[in-house]
């Protein structure tokens, strides 16, 4: 063979980038649909996970109680929840023969949002607990002198740490948008209904169309990059205004 093997592989990586660019520029409606669903599912899951995880993280951060260390260990351990296990648990509940089967949610985007929320809420809770606990160490005395209730303290901490918490949210979003194990089980990777970027990549890989799979991977990375850039811009603009 004329070309050593690694050069051929490099060639297919180059091909994937070209293909990715071509896919994006062509505005392929199927691709746009998949991208839109990926964003809708993972951004919604991130929002819900923040609604659940931030207050929990804040409460644990400011509270002192028996068994707190155990709670912290469990919270941190849950950050490593395997997506496939979460997918299976959600499947068993949402299946027609499961306790919540009557809702008819299996194989819908809602089921995917539920699975990803369960997956990333612990990440949001555990990371925000760490951020807020550090901040609380600075504020604790001031809170005491102002006689704030626990709820007021939580609200004050969350507000003052809002920019750091954006990064926490991004960590959750990154995990959600990149996982495939949970959404493929509860969504079923149904074309035009529950197919997202990661399940499309898995499908193209199993069809042996590695260049297209990699191209979709490049597009997914670009999406992730855009979301992070958008949040960073928002944060910079807001902090700049705060000092004007």
């Amino acid at each position, binding site marked *: 063979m004329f070309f050593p093997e690694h050069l051929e592989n490099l060639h297919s990586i180059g091909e994937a980038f070209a293909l990715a660019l071509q896919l994006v520029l062509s505005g392929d409606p199927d691709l746009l649909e998949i991208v839109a669903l990926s964003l809708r599912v993972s951004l919604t899951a991130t929002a819900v996970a923040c609604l659940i995880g931030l207050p929990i993280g804040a409460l644990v951060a400011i509270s002192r109680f028996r068994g707190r260390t155990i709670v912290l260990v469990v919270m941190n351990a849950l950050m490593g929840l395997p997506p496939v296990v979460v997918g299976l648990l959600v499947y068993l509940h949402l299946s027609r023969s499961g306790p919540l089967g009557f809702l008819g949610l299996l194989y819908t985007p809602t089921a995917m949002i539920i699975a990803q929320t369960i997956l990333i809420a612990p990440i949001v809770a555990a990371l925000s607990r760490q951020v807020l606990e550090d901040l609380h160490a600075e504020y604790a005395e001031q809170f005491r002198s102002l006689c704030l209730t626990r709820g007021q303290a939580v609200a004050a901490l969350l507000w003052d740490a809002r920019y750091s918490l954006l990064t926490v949210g991004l960590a959750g979003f990154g995990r959600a948008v990149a996982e495939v194990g949970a959404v493929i089980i509860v969504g079923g990777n149904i074309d035009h209904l529950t197919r997202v970027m990661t399940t499309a990549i898995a499908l193209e890989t*199993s069809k042996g169309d*590695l260049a297209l799979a990699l191209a979709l991977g490049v597009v997914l990375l670009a999406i992730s990059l855009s979301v992070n850039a958008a949040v960073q811009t928002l944060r910079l603009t807001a902090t700049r205004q705060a000092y004007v």
Partner: protein
Amino acid sequence: MIRRTVGASAIALVFASAAAAQDQSIIVQSTTSTANSGLYDHLLPLFQDKTGIQVNVVAVGTGQAIRNAANCDGDVLLVHAKASEEEFVAAGFGAERTDLMYNDFVIVGPADDPAGIRGMSDAQAALTKIGQQGALFASRGDDSGTHKKEVSLWADTGIDPADASGEWYRETGSGMGATLNAGIGMGAYVMTDRATWISFGNKQDYAIQVEGDEDLFNQYGVIPISPEKCPSVNSEAAQTFADWLVSDEGQDAIAAYRVADQQLFFPNAPDS
């Protein structure tokens, strides 16, 4: 007042159309081989144009498809493991099983053919040779229709490949395409259905080594899920889909699907 009425009827319309759309969609639990080969992309638009029924395909291994269907998570089952399908119907989950189409399994392998099985047409003899020489063999290992067939072929060779699991016998526990990727990556022989093989895009130096054995016959069947066991099924639409597949029109559509100038599935539903 008028605005309110318009608003209310608009909302009613949205809900009504959402409900109607819901009625007109079914879930088919099916195999990776039929989905990965692109058959559904060819068939479903034809069916949808005719009936307006949206068909959503969940493509998993036959074993998992049957389990999902037994959990009532689907309206139609379209798989390829006749014995398991008949059990499914006997257990009351399926209304009726009908032969739909067939193709065949082949054994693919690398160009240097380490076990020397190229051109053989006796699958068991070929597997025996692979086993005796300890040549690498990648198995689905996922209780799919293809896996069940492969296990049944080994059973008659007197070799128990499970003894060599992790050595020359590699169980990937994945779908057909993923197993082909893994097998090709490690230089192992793989048994695959012909449809997946023809449409597979990462063949490298692999080619069909063994084909043409009667034992490699691969029959697909279609079963609407029973509304008695699963009240949630859309049995009318499910039956419409099953009936269309076995009708002359559906059978012709299956026969017309070609990839790389080759027919992938051969319709053989009984004349109704």
